[in-house]
């Protein structure tokens, strides 16, 4: 708890008010811009592209066994919503990606607790909030670098995710036995970076695994990955109860276990999807 007393809570209210208004206005403004900037699907007509460009866009994806042409007249009939749902649900590839991503997002609830965890460093609460920033900075760089590298070796995405989750898993276990503050902070940075990198790769792995599904089915499968991943965050909120301070063995233990499961899921995914 920082030593500074609130001058008056009212001042706080004003601060928040500005925050909400600025944020809301920016969101509305950007929504309007986005309407003009966003691209529709390649199969839909667009004023932003010439016919030739659209043809190339569709063709290069068809070559990649992606199926953006669904829905275009004369190519393939549209799939009904129910049919798309059934197809997505009955495809094992959907489920392996759902479970894998659930593990990643579930473990990522860790990010809600960075400030709490960093407080273990002995920083007062204000400083603790700032000390969260390096965690995100390192994660940012990791995510971007890992994305660039893994496009080059895209057939090994499953293994790369397994690798990142192993890093997080090992750090989680180490954090349970190491109580030196600085060491724990560094471990926390590695843990977070591994999870964020795995998150981005998990999405691209899922998306490219679904590449040959019909557009509608792919939409449902991706929504499932996203939605069930979010669902995995619910129990995450209970992983770091105040009573567990400062070691948080339960939270780190569960996350280590989840990452371990994730490693197995993604290695299995790599093996099963290798031939494709």
């Amino acid at each position, binding site marked *: 708890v920082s030593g500074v*007393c609130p001058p008056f*809570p009212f001042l*706080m209210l004003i*601060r*928040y008010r*500005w*925050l*909400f*208004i600025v944020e*809301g*206005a*920016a*969101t*509305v403004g950007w929504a309007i811009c986005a309407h003009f*900037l*966003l*691209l529709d*699907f*390649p*199969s839909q007509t667009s004023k932003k592209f010439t016919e030739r460009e659209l*043809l*190339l866009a569709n*063709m*290069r*994806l*068809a070559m990649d*066994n*992606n199926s*953006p042409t669904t829905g275009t007249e004369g*190519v*393939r009939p549209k799939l009904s*919503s129910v049919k798309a*749902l059934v197809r997505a649900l009955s495809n094992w590839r959907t489920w392996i990606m759902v479970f894998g991503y659930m593990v990643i997002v579930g473990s990522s609830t860790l*990010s809600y607790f960075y*400030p*709490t965890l960093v407080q273990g460093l002995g920083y007062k609460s*204000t*400083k603790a*909030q*700032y000390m969260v920033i390096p965690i*995100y900075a390192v994660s*940012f760089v990791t*995510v971007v670098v*890992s*994305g*660039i590298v893994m496009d080059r070796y895209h057939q090994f995405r499953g293994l790369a995710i397994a690798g990142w989750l192993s890093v997080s898993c090992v750090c989680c276990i180490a954090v349970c036995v190491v109580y030196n503050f600085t060491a724990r902070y560094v471990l926390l940075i590695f843990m977070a970076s591994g999870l*964020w990198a795995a998150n981005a*790769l998990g*999405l*691209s792995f899922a998306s*490219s695994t679904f*590449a040959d599904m019909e557009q*509608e089915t792919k939409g449902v499968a991706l929504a499932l*990955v*996203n*939605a*069930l991943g*979010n669902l995995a965050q*619910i129990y995450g*909120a209970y992983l770091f109860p105040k009573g567990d301070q400062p070691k948080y063995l339960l939270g780190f233990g569960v996350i280590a276990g989840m990452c371990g499961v994730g490693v197995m899921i993604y290695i299995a995914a790599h093996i099963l999807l290798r031939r494709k």
Partner: protein
Amino acid sequence: MDTKDVKCHEADYVEDYQDTTDVQFEAGEEKKLVRKIDLFLMPTIWLMYLMSYMDRTNIGNAKIAGMNEDLHLSSTQYSMALVIFAKTRPSVFLPTIMGPWGIVTCCMAVIKDYNHLLALRFVVGVLESGFAPGILLIISSWYKREEQSKRFAVYISAAVLSGAFGGLLAGSITSHLDGSHGLEGWR
């Protein structure tokens, strides 16, 4: 890509295209097209995601874990309704949910009761839940497999950055307010 690649591929729809068109593409053309797609999609999506994440972080999720639960549940149900998304235009669908969530966020500024704030936050959450699956499908539909990791990395990087920004914001707010009270302080 050169034209040779196009010809040796066996997928049905490529042949469909080949039959109906005699268009030949030059080597540099694909690269140029991908750059154009990037230019339209990446900054737009990045900023959208940054904004959607920002208010999640600035209210402080950990402090309202109970509401989180409701939010995630409803977002799951809502995402299921997104089957329709595959049939709409993203340039209409996404701004249509984003506009109202921005307006509701503005409304939070005039709220006097904490529970009302939570209610509004819930509405924003429901609107936002249509956002992520939509973005995933757009990226998935425009890029080849070996191009996707980079683009999803850009997408996730917005979430990471807004986390850092949230930390900065929270730091400056708690330095003016007793950190342990958080939002309760202004109730």
